[in-house]
């Protein structure tokens, strides 16, 4: 009987001392946490995609609570999240949400682009890129193994005929795909995007023509015909300046190779 009482006393005392230590330590080392951070965390989608420029939703919530950043940096959350953040922080929703979308600048699918070899290796773009720049004859284009498909948090990308396509309605503009694409064939543009040049090949026109049926051959036709002066050709590749483009869609109609596409 005595041993049971000793055991109870010893364990009880150790427990009490532990409890006292934790209580004192917590009181002494109390860290003030902004209560809004937790609320902001519950508002944010929690995808930790990094579109806001922070490492995760928590980083963005912290910065928001401190008032360091704008509330419109979370594309995955959409307008709903934006309004809730403004409501919580007492800001007015003047600026509007910056909505973005990813564009895959390649049209060289299995029908239009010649392949230079049959690749039987590990089926990721990253691995395929290591071997002579991939199986397609054009080393600027989409490899089609879908590294971006696997990583896309909004399931907005699909592969057809070895080319990735983005569903603009689903894309949140988080730029995650940008980081995994070994060719850098993806870009993220501010919405609305009316037209896009779906080619990244900077080789001379004659070489491109030989490799791919949908590649930009730098014929300069779009540059001449664009009434807004928004298209320029650099290094044998047409590029659209979206700050000037007014979205008339004329370039998509006249492009000889049909590598300019209207959305």
């Amino acid at each position: 009987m005595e041993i049971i009482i000793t055991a109870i006393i010893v364990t009880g005392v150790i427990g009490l001392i532990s409890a006292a230590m934790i209580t004192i330590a917590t009181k002494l080392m109390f860290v003030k946490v902004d209560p809004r951070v937790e609320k902001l965390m519950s508002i944010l989608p929690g995808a930790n995609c990094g579109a806001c420029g922070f490492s995760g939703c928590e980083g963005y919530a912290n910065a928001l609570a401190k008032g360091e950043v704008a509330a419109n940096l979370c594309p995955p959350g959409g307008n709903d999240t934006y309004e809730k953040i403004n409501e919580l922080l007492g800001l007015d929703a003047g600026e509007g949400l910056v909505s973005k979308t990813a564009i895959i600048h390649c049209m060289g699918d299995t029908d239009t682009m010649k392949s230079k070899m049959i690749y039987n290796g590990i089926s990721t773009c990253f691995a395929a890129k290591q071997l002579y720049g991939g199986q397609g004859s054009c080393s600027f284009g989409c490899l089609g193994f879908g590294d971006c498909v696997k990583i896309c948090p909004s399931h907005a990308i699909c592969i057809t005929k070895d080319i990735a396509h983005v569903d603009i309605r689903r894309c949140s503009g988080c730029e995650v795909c940008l980081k995994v694409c070994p060719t850098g064939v993806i870009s993220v543009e501010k919405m609305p995007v009316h037209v896009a040049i779906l080619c990244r090949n900077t080789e001379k026109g004659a070489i491109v023509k030989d490799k791919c049926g949908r590649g930009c051959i730098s014929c300069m036709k779009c540059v001449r015909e664009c009434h807004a002066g928004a298209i320029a050709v650099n290094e044998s590749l047409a590029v659209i300046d979206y700050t000037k483009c007014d979205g008339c869609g004329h370039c998509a109609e006249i492009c000889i190779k049909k590598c300019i596409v209207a959305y």
Partner: protein
Amino acid sequence: MEFDFKSLVIIMMSAVLVNNYVLRQFLGVCPFLGVSKDLKSSAGMGLSVLFVMIMAAAATWPIQVYLLTPNGLGFMQTVVFILIIATLVQLVEVVLRKFLPAIFASLGIYLPLMTTNCAVFAVTISNINNEYTFIEALVSAVGAGLGFLLAMVIFTGVREQTAAADPPEAFKGIPITLISAAILSLAFFAFEGVIENLFK
């Protein structure tokens, strides 16, 4: 106090390699499989386990020797030790949050996991069962922690390879992880007898 350097080295090396807590005694396998996906988090987990093991060994040894054994309370060992380890982990968490918020942020998730990590508990128990002195107990805790860290880091390397490889559909995910863990464990069985013969 007299230091027997050779026996300390033997205790240390055997805790790291021969009796590696994860790969030889299969203790603490949960974090071993759970947080070994990338090097940063597995090294963070390994280091925090190392730290908690040393703290726990230093705290439980005097309590066993000066409080439990003299009062004939050896049977309360499990309860008391778990109580102490949980308290320590809580304290470490509070201190880290206050003074080293960066480290706390990177360890945040793993620290509470340690409370119920059986590898930490096993170190404190085996220190008592082997009748180690205080210094020996500390050295064995350091060895156990380093062994855990070593196992975590090696296995992270293995997992990075299996993630890039393309195993058959049936082996994808958990199965291939368990198989590679088993092979790694077998590899550590090769250390059998190394320590005894090292100091002949």
